[in-house]
């Protein structure tokens, strides 16, 4: 989870003869947040629990929507500005469910996976991004 995300491979794995649609979300490191200039971003995780939560989220997405595949990858450690921190690819017969499932998975990821983002500000200082309390 500490290397750059290989988006090309993620897309290759999502191409299926029975599918007409692949919806993809890429989260990228942004140079600002709530009015402050961000010079770098870093992610920390409870790695085994995060990996299990991502696997569970892939399965739950496939169970909840009429989609054929869902692949999710999250990068950890420093993610330079413009690089991809998270990638979700959902393949389906039709585009409606692909889009819906992809968006749902991303919202859910932010709510349920033990990963934390820290920002380092251009003017100095740093802060953990305000997040969501995990619920059992």
């Amino acid at each position: 989870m500490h290397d750059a995300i290989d988006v090309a491979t993620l897309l290759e794995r999502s191409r299926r003869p029975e599918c007409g649609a692949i919806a993809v979300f890429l989260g990228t490191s942004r140079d600002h947040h709530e009015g402050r200039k961000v010079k770098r971003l870093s992610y920390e995780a409870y790695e085994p629990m995060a990996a299990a939560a991502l696997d569970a989220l892939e399965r739950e997405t496939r169970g909840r929507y009429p989609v054929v595949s869902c692949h999710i990858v999250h990068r950890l450690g420093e993610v330079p500005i413009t690089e991809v921190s998270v990638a979700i690819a959902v393949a389906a017969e039709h585009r409606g469910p692909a889009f819906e499932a992809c968006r749902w998975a991303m919202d859910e990821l932010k709510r349920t996976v033990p990963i934390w983002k820290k920002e380092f500000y251009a003017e100095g200082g740093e802060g953990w991004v305000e997040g969501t309390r995990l619920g059992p």
Partner: protein
Amino acid sequence: MSDSSTLTVTLLLFAQARERAGRSKLDVELPRGSRLSDALAAVERLHPALAELRPHLAVAVDRRLVAGDQVLEDRVEIALLPPVSGG
């Protein structure tokens, strides 16, 4: 190794919890029969800066989120999880 009257649990601290404690991991020895709340109280005695964070933390035992105040088994892994912000 803990003797038969005590148990040892490992606490894992992440993000703000890790920074406030100045460490990512510690072992705590507790009397047998101790509960999760006893372990949390013990780590807060060692690292008082954690107390303020407590209402915001979720807790996992052996990588599973828990809500109640369960009795602890020997050698469980307790993780203190601040609000998450992946993505």
